[in-house]
């Protein structure tokens, strides 16, 4: 009996390899060099890796353009424009996080090199999720991503809340993973495979007389994902964890987890369970309504900036889910567009929070933001723009993101759902605006000035620039997102 090793298309997995390879390299470097690896080296490694990954993405894009979407390594990995774009988004988020974390690590005097190792490896997991074409690979990607994040959340040893948040995150994350894999088991039982293509093929060519098992499995998968993206009612961990985690990590989490999880969710629900659209849609409907409305409503009562953004991120998760609910090409493109635009904004927002948090990373009450824009017009203005973008104000990418998902939902016949989501956006507007107003309050102009290191400043500037540039001219991104979803024909 000879073993037929599956063929491997290395270009397809090159970004993943680069990320893990760099993590290993840094790790080995720390172990082998007599002098400590300086944080500058680590940061530049991460930056170089992200840029390299982006370059690879470009070649992948051309490859897909030439040869079409393909699967490789026994159909476990898929190379299509969707995955290419999603990985590019992750690379950008990692790049931004790395720069913010650089300044943060110096300020907090934590070991930044390890931070970069974990961040690289963890985002490698997210990359896997964007490419996975097999429930097991998704599961592994999810785990790699999560394990890295658990460590990153606990990274700040000077604060007890950091490790306690990690514990909470870990326990609920483990719970979610177990639920997810149980769902995978049931789906496997119902369809005979864990490969998304095979599942889709099986469901396409067979009529299930008793689809209960499949439904149960699908529902559990959905719950697993819902936990990861913090959809209500599976969101309970997220505010505590967002609050407890070191602030750059929170930004990373909010961006990268969403990209990875939604990419995988879209693949599972649309390309694999697309035939069961009518079954999972109602569930998703309820999920979306709860997520958007509860997320927005609970954000209002928060006094802590990080918790507020946590709930806001829940609200955003609901909006992204809208695109999934649509279940159409347009919906998929909208989902992709949403995460594309949301990731830089949220990382940049948390970059501002990192700065305002100050040494010790504790100044997160909304009070610390009073008059910020008065004292430091650029910083405050940047935060204001980022908040407006999250609110969905026109001329920022946030508007088009919301517009895209709503359009897809309306197109798919979900006017009521779109309306509910929009009303939730109006509720959410309340706390974004209250925050923005605090920024411009004139009763506390004499507060402490916030130090803005150069790299973090650049990240914030980049986030703002992206949101405004593509807010004015969303054409390129929209076209990109639209092109990226050719494979997803439900």
């Amino acid at each position, binding site marked *: 009996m000879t073993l037929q090793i599956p063929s491997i298309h290395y270009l397809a997995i090159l970004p993943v390899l680069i990320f893990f390879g760099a993590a290993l390299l840094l790790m080995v470097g720390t172990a082998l060099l007599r002098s400590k690896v300086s944080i500058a080296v680590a940061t530049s490694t991460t930056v170089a890796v992200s840029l390299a990954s982006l370059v690879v993405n470009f070649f992948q894009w051309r490859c897909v353009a030439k040869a079409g979407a393909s699967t490789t390594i026994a159909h476990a990995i898929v190379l299509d424009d969707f995955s290419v774009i999603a990985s590019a988004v992750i690379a950008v988020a990692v790049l931004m996080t790395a720069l913010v974390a650089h300044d943060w690590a110096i300020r907090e005097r934590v070991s930044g090199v390890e931070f970069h190792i974990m961040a690289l490896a963890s985002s490698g997991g997210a990359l896997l999720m964007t490419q996975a074409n097999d429930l097991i690979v998704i599961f592994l990607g999810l785990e790699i991503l999560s394990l890295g994040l658990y460590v990153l959340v*606990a990274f700040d040893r000077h604060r007890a809340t950091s490790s306690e948040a990690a*514990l909470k995150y870990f326990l609920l994350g483990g*719970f979610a993973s177990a639920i997810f894999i*149980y769902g995978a088991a049931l789906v496997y*039982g119902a369809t*005979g495979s864990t490969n998304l293509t095979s599942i889709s093929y099986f469901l396409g060519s067979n009529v299930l007389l008793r689809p209960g098992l499949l439904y149960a499995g699908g529902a559990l998968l959905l719950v697993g994902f819902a936990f990861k993206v913090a959809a209500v009612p599976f969101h309970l961990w997220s505010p505590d964890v967002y609050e407890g985690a070191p602030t750059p990590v929170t930004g990373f989490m909010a961006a990268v987890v969403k990209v990875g999880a939604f990419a995988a969710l879209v693949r599972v629900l649309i390309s694999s369970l697309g035939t069961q659209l009518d079954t999972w849609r109602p569930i998703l409907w309820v999920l979306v309504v709860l997520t958007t409305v509860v997320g927005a409503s609970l954000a209002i009562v928060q006094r802590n900036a990080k918790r507020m953004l946590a709930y806001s991120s829940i609200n955003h998760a609901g909006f992204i889910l809208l695109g999934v609910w649509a279940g159409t090409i347009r919906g998929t493109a909208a989902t992709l567009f949403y995460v594309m635009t949301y990731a830089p904004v949220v990382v940049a927002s948390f970059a501002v929070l990192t700065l305002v948090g100050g040494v010790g990373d504790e100044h997160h009450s909304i009070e610390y933001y009073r008059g910020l824009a008065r004292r430091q017009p650029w910083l405050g203005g940047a935060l204001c723009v980022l908040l407006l973008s999250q609110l969905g104000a026109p001329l920022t990418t946030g508007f088009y993101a919301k517009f895209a998902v709503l359009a897809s939902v309306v197109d798919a016949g979900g006017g009521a759902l779109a309306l509910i989501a929009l009303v939730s956006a109006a509720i959410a507007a309340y706390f974004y605006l209250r925050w923005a107003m605090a920024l411009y309050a004139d009763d506390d102009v004499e507060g402490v000035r916030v130090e803005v290191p150069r790299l973090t400043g650049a990240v914030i500037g980049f986030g703002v620039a992206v949101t405004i540039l593509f807010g004015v001219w969303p054409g390129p991104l929209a076209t990109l997102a639209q092109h990226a979803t050719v494979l997803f024909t439900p």
Partner: protein
Amino acid sequence: MNVPAAWYLVLAAILFGIGAFGLLTRRSALIMFMCIELMLNAVNLTFVTFSRTLSDIDGQAIVFFVMVVAAAEVTVGLGIVVAVFRRRPSSSVDELSELKG
């Protein structure tokens, strides 16, 4: 003839349920943690049973990955528990003295 697969599947479902219930109701981190292991075991049992009914070895292969994941999770999880505990050794001493009094 072996017992029907359904028996094992129900067993796994019950095990999963017990694990989930424990995870949500217990407060000790370590025990919650063990409950996650229970759930993963239920998953393994399900996979193996389906592997039998489907005559497909993949189900058993997957169990490997689940085990690896379980091991990795435990490693990190216990690391976190240790880290949390390190943060507050003083409180536990207080607790000890209270117990004595």
